């Protein structure tokens, strides 16, 4: 990951800012190359990375998270703040004020991730540091993150393998149980998660299993029991050392009906159409339009509004976006989750969500562990599984 470190340092040194301050959990992760424990669930607890043009970068973290950052090999400076020094973000702001003054940056231009910092926190920082010229640096973050280094791609590829193996191992538990030794949907979802972790993942976030009619919508709470004859969708995002995968897989309990098989084939057909366009020089909205035209020609209905994919990297959903509104041109090093929703016989949402890296010649699949050209068929009659 030295390549990434160098890339970030070069971007900061060549930027118009005297320092960059990242407050978003994903941007923190990206710049520091360390992962915070579930930080997005603590809106009143803040951490940040300050990267000055000259001098060492500093992370500002609460005590509870500090050792975890050091244990991940953080070699820059660290400022640990005392949460008893201010209400909610007050202690963080106080620490930031002291830090920026001590670094002589209190009359300088600091780029900040305005798409992440809240209005309230920004007001507090501006109030304490009136001499600082705060400027949105979001385009810089976006441009940096959108093209991955080889090291980043390697981590994403590992995360894909971990997640696919996690899903498959969970499915193996399901084999032989449908119809007589009942499995709850919650337990099946948990098996996906635990097997993903066992395969080396450092975290699982989005987790959803939609069986039968529950699969008609994006997410339902994991309730009820698995029964025969259903198409089901398994969605999961997880990360390996802070780099994410975001996969969607399909299965069927019992032997699929011809209608179910045909429905899945339609999805694969559109996926293959999209893959023709996943290459350098093609704009994201052109990929979308190509799929839309193919769907129309083949009379295949697909869920248009969410688009057909997005970037993945230091978060599980990021730029670029394969939708009508995104004219970003695909370039080598971009990592795309291709995600086309079509419909099953009972209007179940069907997708086969894979990750691809754009290469000089086209694309390369990162989630290659299984082809998933067919739905996973869960059957068997063992009683001791």
């Amino acid at each position, binding site marked *: 990951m030295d390549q990434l470190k160098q890339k970030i340092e070069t971007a900061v040194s060549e930027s118009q800012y005297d320092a960059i301050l990242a407050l978003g959990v994903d941007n923190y992760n990206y710049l520091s190359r360390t992962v915070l424990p579930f930080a997005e669930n603590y809106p009143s607890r803040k951490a940040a990375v300050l990267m000055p043009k000259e001098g060492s970068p500093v992370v500002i973290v609460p*005590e509870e998270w500090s050792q975890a950052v050091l244990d991940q090999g953080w070699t820059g400076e660290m400022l640990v703040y005392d949460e*008893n020094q201010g209400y909610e973000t007050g202690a963080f702001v106080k620490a930031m004020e002291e830090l920026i003054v001590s670094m002589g940056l209190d009359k300088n231009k600091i780029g900040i991730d305005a*798409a992440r910092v*809240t209005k309230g926190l920004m007001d507090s920082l501006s109030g304490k540091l009136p001499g600082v010229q705060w400027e949105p640096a979001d385009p810089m973050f976006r441009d940096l993150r959108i093209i991955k280094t080889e090291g980043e791609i390697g981590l994403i590829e590992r995360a894909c393998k971990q997640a696919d193996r996690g899903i498959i191992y969970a499915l193996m538990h399901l084999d032989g149980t449908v119809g007589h030794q009942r499995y709850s949907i919650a337990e099946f979802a948990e098996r996906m998660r635990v097997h993903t972790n066992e395969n080396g993942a450092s975290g699982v976030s989005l987790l959803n299993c939609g069986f039968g009619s529950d699969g008609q919508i994006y997410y339902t*709470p994991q309730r009820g029991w698995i029964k025969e004859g259903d198409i089901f969708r398994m969605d999961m995002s997880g990360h390996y050392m802070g780099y994410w995968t975001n996969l969607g897989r399909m299965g069927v309990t019992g032997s699929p009906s011809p209608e179910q098989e045909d429905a899945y084939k339609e999805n694969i057909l559109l996926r293959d159409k999209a893959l023709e366009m996943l290459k350098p020089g093609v704009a994201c909205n052109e990929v979308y339009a190509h799929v839309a035209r193919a769907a129309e020609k083949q009379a295949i209905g697909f869920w248009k509004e969410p688009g057909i994919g997005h970037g993945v990297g230091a978060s599980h959903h990021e730029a670029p976006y394969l939708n009508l509104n995104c004219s970003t041109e695909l370039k080598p090093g971009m990592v795309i989750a291709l995600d086309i929703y079509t419909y099953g016989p009972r209007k179940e949402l069907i997708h086969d969500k894979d990750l691809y890296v754009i290469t000089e010649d086209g694309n390369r699949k990162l989630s290659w562990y299984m082809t998933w050209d067919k739905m996973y068929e869960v059957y068997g009659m063992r009683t001791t599984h």
Partner: protein
Amino acid sequence: MREEIIEKVNAGISEAGYDAILVFGYDNVQYLSGAYLHFPQSFPDRYMAVFWTKDEPATCVLPHEWESSFLNLSWINKTRTYNEKPGSPSGIVEAAVHIAKNTVRKTGRIGIDVNRTPLNVYNRLKGALEDFELVPCDDLLRELRLRKTPQELKLLDEVVSKNDQSIAGHAHHILVLQANGEMNITEGIRTHAIERELDEVGHQAIAQAVSEPNMKTWWPSAPMFGIGLDKKPLQREWLRMELVSTVNGYWSNGVRMLSMDDPTDEMKEDYQSLVTLREAAREALKPGAKASDVYSAVKATADENEIKLESKVTLGAGIGASNYEPPYISAADETELEPGMIIVFAPAIRDAKDNLLMAKDTFIITEEGNKLIGWWKDWREPFIANYTY
């Protein structure tokens, strides 16, 4: 719960003089809508908001992909979806502006949760709603969420009780001379949680089992948080068992200590320190006291008894629609405690081997003082592992 919260929110909006509130924080959206989607906070590039006009049905603004899931779970039955544009919040801003212009009088006062709203979203809204008065409404939301309704308390009691039972439920399976490794124990806690119909989805719905010597930190084996290492707890060692879980989006956060066999005198003494701190908190947690008073009382008890209490951290926080919210048992929180507030008291202390020992106990503030909820067993002593099943 639906009626209680809707009535409370409507009253709050009227009393505070807002014509509407526009709320972006995932926790605030969940509180106002009743829809627990475990994932919005992990989509930093996607926005979701509730627009609640005074005396009118609220509307949720959200990406199309999430709409049906939201409607399936929420008591809000009006939605407005928007087209996502890369790197730009213009889609959600346009949708919110449309609602504002159609439901709020010109120059009306619209409250916004500025402590959750991204700066770029706020700036666009400010420009697009220049005919309106945009003002922070974080204090209103804080006040609404601080004091739980009877139904919220009932649900929290259920979650906290099941959480404790899940930890203890797996503790029964840990054998002194044949213990499994931390990863296996971690999964065992999760399984017991699922058996009790706790939700274990979401990026913070975690279990963690940590034994010596990994107990020296809050989050061992970073960044493999809440997964567990292969270390097996040994006889006369500590095992820290943690579980964070939800039911319908309401949280519990529990930690219990397990002693591998009868604890040694040193272990008993260390555990007694946690009990002493809990008793200090129990005495201090009452209506009229400030949260900072509780912090001071516990800190003073620790100092008097030479207990090595972790500094720089709070000694607990509220739970509800999030797992870490006001009031905070912190030197900096001047909140006056009132009946209906709920607090997880969470001290962390160091033993002679530098292990971090913890206990998390949940208290509801009552008219008379407080009520400790959720104990599966009497935690004046740790769970003591068995030799056989």
